[in-house]
């Protein structure tokens, strides 16, 4: 049996093998959960409250970001029972604009940092990137791990980077993006999750959303199981954020089912579970309207921001 990964902090991470076929079967079975009526409405609203409304384009401007923030604060007219989303997620140079636009609301501002999405810059640059975003007002930092280092087996280095970024975050919460689509196997997803949590992540996040595959249900399940084991080992509750490719309400409800059955009801709140998405809120709103009126909806009736 292998002896595990020893991080420079002295912590030891044991490899935890994962059977892909078994994971796929569990995912398929969880997806058969039928969420109807009141639990569907509650679930959809819960999912909305967990959204990190995201814009991460090279073409982003203050105007675009202000529009996004407006949507975040007011998802839909004609209903007063809708929650606000949990956060908006933007590039560091847009943080100040977002903070300004969201003043007076509980909506957080998350910034991607550490040379997002590739992470291919020296640590000094990544730390500077982080500090800048925090000083601009980011409540949360979404960092990327160095996948190249990870795939070469340089695990202590990957872990130490995370620990350094966590220090640079100061009061801000740290989400660690594993970029699962580049890791190749579920065994590696598990290992990366464990390393990230040991190194100080407040949240582990699946993807940058810039490549496919992003947050597949298989990868989500593995990460949730990692969080469950970490909680059993340390008593610490780490949060989880799937991001990318979660386009419709059904997918969102499937995620909630997985969280509920793997981690338990304690994790079903925005402090411990977020969904990184841009198109998702409108699909959820359409489903909520359908539940309210009994009639299937169309896209013309929901604002595209």
């Amino acid at each position, binding site marked *: 049996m292998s002896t595990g990964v020893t991080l420079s902090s002295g912590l030891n991470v044991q490899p935890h093998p994962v059977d892909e076929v078994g994971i796929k079967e569990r995912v398929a079975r969880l997806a058969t959960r039928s969420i109807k009526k*009141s639990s569907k409405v509650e679930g959809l609203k819960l999912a909305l409250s967990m959204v990190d409304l995201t814009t991460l384009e090279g073409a982003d401007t203050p105007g675009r970001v202000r529009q996004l923030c407006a949507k975040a604060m007011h998802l839909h007219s004609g209903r007063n029972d809708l929650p606000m989303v949990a956060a908006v997620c933007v590039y560091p140079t847009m943080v100040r604009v977002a903070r300004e636009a969201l003043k007076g609301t509980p909506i957080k501002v998350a910034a991607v940092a550490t040379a997002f999405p590739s992470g291919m810059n020296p640590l000094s640059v990544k730390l500077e990137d982080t500090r800048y975003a925090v000083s601009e007002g980011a409540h949360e930092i979404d960092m990327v791990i160095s996948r190249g280092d990870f795939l070469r087996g340089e695990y202590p280095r990957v872990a130490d980077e995370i620990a350094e970024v966590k220090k640079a975050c100061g009061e801000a919460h740290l989400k660690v993006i594993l970029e699962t689509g580049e890791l190749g196997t579920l065994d590696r997803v598990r290992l990366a999750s464990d390393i990230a949590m040991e190194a100080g992540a407040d949240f582990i996040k699946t993807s940058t959303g810039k490549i496919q595959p992003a947050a597949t249900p298989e990868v989500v399940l593995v990460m949730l199981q990692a969080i469950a084991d970490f909680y059993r080992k340390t008593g610490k509750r780490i949060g989880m954020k799937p991001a990318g490719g979660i386009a419709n309400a059904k997918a969102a409800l499937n995620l909630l089912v997985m969280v509920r059955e793997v981690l338990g009801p*304690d994790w079903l709140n925005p402090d411990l579970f977020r969904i990184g998405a841009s198109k998702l809120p409108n699909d959820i709103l359409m489903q909520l309207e359908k539940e309210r009126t009994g009639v299937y909806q169309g896209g013309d009736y929901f604002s595209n921001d």
Partner: protein
Amino acid sequence: MIKTSTTVGSDWGYAPAPESADHFKLKDHYGLFIGGKFAPAVSGKRFKTINPANEKVIAEVADGGEKDVDRAVKAARTAYDKVWRKMSGRERGKYLYRIARIIQERARELAVVESMDGGKPIRESRDVDIPLAAAHFFYHAGWADKLGYAFPGKSVAPVGVAGQIIPWNFPLLMVAWKVAPALACGNTVVLKPAETTPLTALLFAEICQEAGLPEGVFNLVTGAGSTGAALVNHPGLDKVAFTGSTEVGKAIQKSLAGRGTRLTLELGGKAAHIIFEDATIDQAVEGIINGIYFNQGHVCCAGSRLLVQESVEQEVVAKLKARMETLIVGDPLDKNTDIGAINSKAQCDRIRDYLKIGEEEGAELFQTQCSVPEKGYWIRPSFFTKVAQSHRIVQEEIFGPVLAIQSFRTLNEALEKANNTPYGLSGGVWTDKGAKIFKVTRGIRAGVIWANTFNKFDPTSPFGGYKESGYGREGGRHGLRPYVELS
């Protein structure tokens, strides 16, 4: 620490999600199916079949007696001599393809009726039982004109008339396992379904009519134990196939001892489910769930004895408990139900007896806390720890959602415990090390071994036991053997 920021969330649960049962209509009563027609029993007697989830009567079915069995065997013989043995394999196969297709077309209706009659969750009947039943007919349809390739060097002929008796745990699937190979090989059939689950077999008889199957090729006699005995003992049979308890299997072998009737038996089991320290633990825990709690533990090949390597025993048991608490026990027609009703009061009482016996023997019982409905027959998922190899709950088949947990230290010890039973139907092993998989699968004396999975079934995969779990195989190329005469 972490506080919730919305009032919604922590108590999010699943609302009832009932499967609709209003798109078809069952009859009030059903007759026997003999010679292509439905007719009452000669005696006119009937019995009720109930829904074990709410104890309500669903329908009445005919109680077949000796005269009815005799009529059925004669109809099967006539159909065999005049029609079926003369038909080309290609044309026989086409009937089976039609049957497979109609099962697919009526899938939802069959699934709902299966759950109502037997107690299993609709998710299982919809996603497992019915699709597998159709797949068995598709698979065997294709063999009908290819039997020479299944038995190279031999001339292949059918055996004749087969009498088949099936249990209540997978009613329609057991029909498929028995009838498909028999018909594909050119035999005709008289089938007796279990007393508590006759309905999907009766719908299957309707499907045979819809498929235009020649009259008398498939015959159905509903009834209880005495009907089964009458069938087994009928001198007009060339072959008997029985799935059920070891006790009854032995009685059948005894009563057929003086005759030349071919016999295959698929009986009970007490399978060892072995988990090594280098297993993928989370998936192994799911495997335990699949092994003993799926289908309420009413599975002959259930992994009812957990043998866990001591170094990971605590972790496995802790994760197992947590996973068991998420299992939903309830109305079989609710799409979220994981564990349905126990098939009958008699079986429920039997399981409760074993739970008492276990505690009396000194074992420690764990049961989940889930709610169960007021009416109907229910057992919460359970396991025993602090058990000894000699305990009755470790030796005897309980046939319910009850697991016995033991630990081991070495591979040889695990194999020894696994084989220390008169049964030999199945076994399971979890380890991430390839060589070890094959060493263990080679070492377990059982007919079906699952490595890093459990309770997987496929029409191409032969199924059957060693020792007192029976003999003969069903499914795959090997499953054809009992239904052919080779020369």
